[in-house]
Every structure is written in C-alpha cells, then in structure tokens.
C-alpha cells in the first residue's frame, strides 16, 4: 500500500508536469492551430536562466523568478519574430516553422554553452524526503503537485475572470468574431503565448528540480510527451490537455513501478500501446473540444 501511495504521488507529480506542458500547447493550438514543438525550448531557456543565476550565487528564488520571466519572454518573442509572420498559414507550414525555431534554439545552446548537461544545484531541502502520513515521499514531488494545483487554479481564474482570458476562450471557438468585437488579435495571441510560456516555465522549474541539470535537448522529450497528452485529452481542449497529462504520467509511473522486471525494457512500448488503445476507443480524445471551430 505504501508503495502504491508513493507511486501515486510520483504519478501526480509527473502527470502534473505533463499537464502544464500540454496545457501550454493546447492554449496556443486552440487559438492559432499551431502545434508548437518549440515549446520544449521554452523549458530549456528556463533551465539555462536558472543555471545562469545560480552561477552568480544568487538565491534560488531569484533563479526561479528569472527562469519564469525568461520562459514568458522567449515564448512571446517566438510569436512576435516567427509565428506572427506565418499567421493564417496552413498547419504544415506552422509545424515546420516550430521545428525550425526549436532547432535554432537548440543549436544556439549547443554552440554557445555546451552540448553536455550542466548542473543546476538546488538547495538540499528541495531534494529531501518528507513523511506524508506513514509514507516517505520526495519533497520535489509534493511541491510539484502543489505548484501544479495552484497554476491550474490561477489559469482557470485568468480564463474565466479577465476580459483577455475570456477573449482567449472565445478565440478558440471563433477567432474572426472576436476581432469583430474590436478585440486585438495580436493581444489575444501574444497573451496566449505568454500564458503558454509561463506554464512551460513552471514545468521546467519542476523538471530541473527533480533532475538537477539542464542541457540543450532538455525540452525535446517532455514536449513530445505533452503532445501525446494533448492528443489523448483531445487536441485543442484545455481540460483534455490536463486530463491527458495526468493519464500519461500515471501510465508511465505505474508501469515503471509495477511491471515485472523482464517486461521493463518494453515499458514505453506498453505505455504507447495503452495510449493507442485509448485513441481507438475515443478517437477525438478523452475530453474533445466542445464546440466546432469557425475560421
């Protein structure tokens, strides 16, 4: 039972990180129909931002703040420099643009800093264990669950209580009509990228906290997982992205914990087979986009 509780904590922690990343992808996709594979590089930029501040011997709080600001800044910059010029282009063009942005940032870090991982040394208390009732769990996992919870509540508040947030939800249904209300398309899209960047930044801080290093390809696998999560949840559905993230996290963690040792090398294959099975049963995802979209 203790093992199950420990693994459930891990599943929620990992699923939460996937959920934040998937939500970031979904927020942008729901409005501009872009699957931003450079979203992983937002994580990488966050990691290097944290690393740089810690090199200067500044407090970890400053490092996290700089990481988050860097994440928002790079996401908004991606929109302004690359994706705005491509607005209205077809999905394939947008996809290729996002791969290009991703590659450029990776190469800049490989050549500008190092292709190898660099250590991001965080305080001991962050990597310690705590007792959760009778069960010992990692502090990073507990913090991760709390932070993800707060981030999701904050995002919900933004989307339901601010005019720009409501406009973002409306834009995901019918962007043209949002413009007919006199609402700036640039502002709505830039805000969506900023929100997406903030979510990726939070995910990156949690990711780095559990791994203790950053490298130029750090975001590649998480963004792939996040993409899978958005598809499982229902592409374009914000609630679906969250559900998809937690489902994927749970599948991965429980398989890792409970598969017989001989089957462990097949963990990813089994995990993806489960995802495919879900999509066979629910082709539009677990929580598909609720309304039909107008262009």
């Amino acid at each position, binding site marked *: 039972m203790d093992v199950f509780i420990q693994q459930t904590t891990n599943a929620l922690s990992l699923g939460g990180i996937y959920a934040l990343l998937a939500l970031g992808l979904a927020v942008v996709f729901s409005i501009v129909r872009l699957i931003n594979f450079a979203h992983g590089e937002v994580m990488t930029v966050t990691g290097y931002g944290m690393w740089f501040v810690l090199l200067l011997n500044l407090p970890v709080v400053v490092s996290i703040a700089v990481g988050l600001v860097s994440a928002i800044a790079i996401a908004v910059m991606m929109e302004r420099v690359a994706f705005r010029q491509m607005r209205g282009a077809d999905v394939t063009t947008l996809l290729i643009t996002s791969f290009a942005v991703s590659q450029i940032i990776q190469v800049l870090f490989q050549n500008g800093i190092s292709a190898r991982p660099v250590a991001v040394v965080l305080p001991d208390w962050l990597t310690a264990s705590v007792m959760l009732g009778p069960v010992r769990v990692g502090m990073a996992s507990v913090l991760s669950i709390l932070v993800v919870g707060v981030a999701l509540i904050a995002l919900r508040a933004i989307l339901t209580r601010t*005019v720009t947030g*409501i*406009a973002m*939800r*409306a834009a995901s*249904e*019918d962007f*043209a*009509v*949002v*413009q*007919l*209300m*006199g*609402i*700036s*398309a640039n502002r709505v899209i830039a805000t969506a990228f900023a929100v997406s960047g903030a979510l990726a930044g939070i995910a990156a801080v949690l990711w780095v906290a559990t791994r203790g290093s950053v490298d130029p390809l750090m975001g590649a696998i998480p963004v792939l997982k996040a993409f899978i999560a958005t598809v499982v949840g229902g592409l374009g559905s914000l609630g679906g992205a969250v559900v998809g993230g937690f489902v994927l996290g749970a599948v991965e963690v429980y398989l890792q914990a409970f598969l017989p040792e001989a089957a462990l090398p097949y963990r990813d294959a089994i995990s993806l087979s489960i995802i495919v099975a879900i999509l066979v049963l629910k082709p539009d995802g677990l929580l598909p986009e*609720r*309304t039909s979209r*107008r262009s």
Partner: protein
Amino acid sequence: MLEVASLTVRYGAIEAVRGLDLEVAGGEIHAILGANGAGKSSTLAGISGLVPSQGRITFNGEDITDRAPEAIARLGIGLIPEGRRIFSGLTVAENLLLGGAEHASPAERKKRADEMRERFPILRERSGQRAGLLSGGEQQMLAIARALMARPKLLLMDEPSLGLAPQMVDAVFDLIAELRAEGITILLVEQNVPMSLDIADHALVLAQGRASYRGTAAEVAASDAVHGAYLGH
C-alpha cells in the same frame, strides 16, 4: 455614412463581388437582396475587413480600406454574422461582456449589459447559462445584444432571420426597425425580400456579385426583376 467604391472580393479564383458601388446614408436601413451566392455576405465580409478586398471603403469620410477587422469595429461598425456565431462555450454574460470589451469602461460595460438584459429579458434569465444551450431565436437576440454592447453607428446584419420560427422572424424585423428609430444605421442582408423591403429605405439587388438593380425600397419592390424573382407575384 458608408461609401463603397469598386469593391471586389475574391476567394482564390472565384470573384464573389465584382466592382460593387454602394452608398449608405446615416440613419437608414439599406437592404442588400439577392439569391444564394449572389455575393451579399461577401460584401459585408469585405466591408468589415473579415476578408481581403479591393476597391475603396470610407466610413464617415475615413478610409477604412485594408484595415484589420478589430480596427474597423472600433470605429463603430458592428457585424452580426450569418448563423449568429455566438460563442457557444461561453455564458450569455460573457458573450455580452466581449461585445463591449473594447468600447466601454468596466462600469459602462456593466450598465450596457444591464440595458441589454432589460431589452431582452430572456438574456437576463439565461445570463449564467452557456450560450450554446439557447434556442435559435434566443441566440439571435444574444448576437444582436452582443453587437449593441459596442453602441455601433453602423450595424451590418447578415441574414438575421435565417432559420428562425415565423414569430421570431417578426420579432427580429420589429427590432431592426426599432434600432433604426434609435438612430443606428443598418445595412441588412436578407433572403426574406418582402419583409426587408417593408422596413428598408433603400435596397440593392445583387446578382453574380454585381448590382443588378438599386433604388428606394418602393422602387425595388415595384421593379419587374425583383417582383418576379423574389416577391413571387
């Protein structure tokens, strides 16, 4: 108020509107009539900036050709699109809020939303409900109320009676006449020719993207082409 000169709207190789001239005077209802595919909706889409167009469009003397839809909306041109296109996943209150978002302060928005709920009592009853759950007629009222939240000077209405029950059609046309009486200029695209000509001051008949007949509503109603083709006498 609105002057359109040589308006051309293309979708790829297809010319939906071909060199259309149109003048709408302040305070009038100007109807655009025609069969399906005549270019009526494309004309409104071109004027509101939703689709790229060629030609020259001026509003109150200001050139608005090639401006973004949001910039045109902020000048006081509202469009109620065909099919209503309310935000079905948002509540009725949120739909209204977005209608006035760029046109009024938060306090003024609240005041206007209260006025809309007064004018359309059904919206008061359904304020917290998702707009997608409203009936077709209620959604049309919401679409009109949402546009009115911006206090537009010129309202472009695209097929406001489409798909509505006869009683609701009457209510929509009564409302259009009321809006005109309140000083709002209306450019009305409709397939319901008799009712449109009843309330319009001027009318333009489109055929294959070109103006085939224009004049006062009475002249258009009496013209042979319109009489035979649309009024069914």
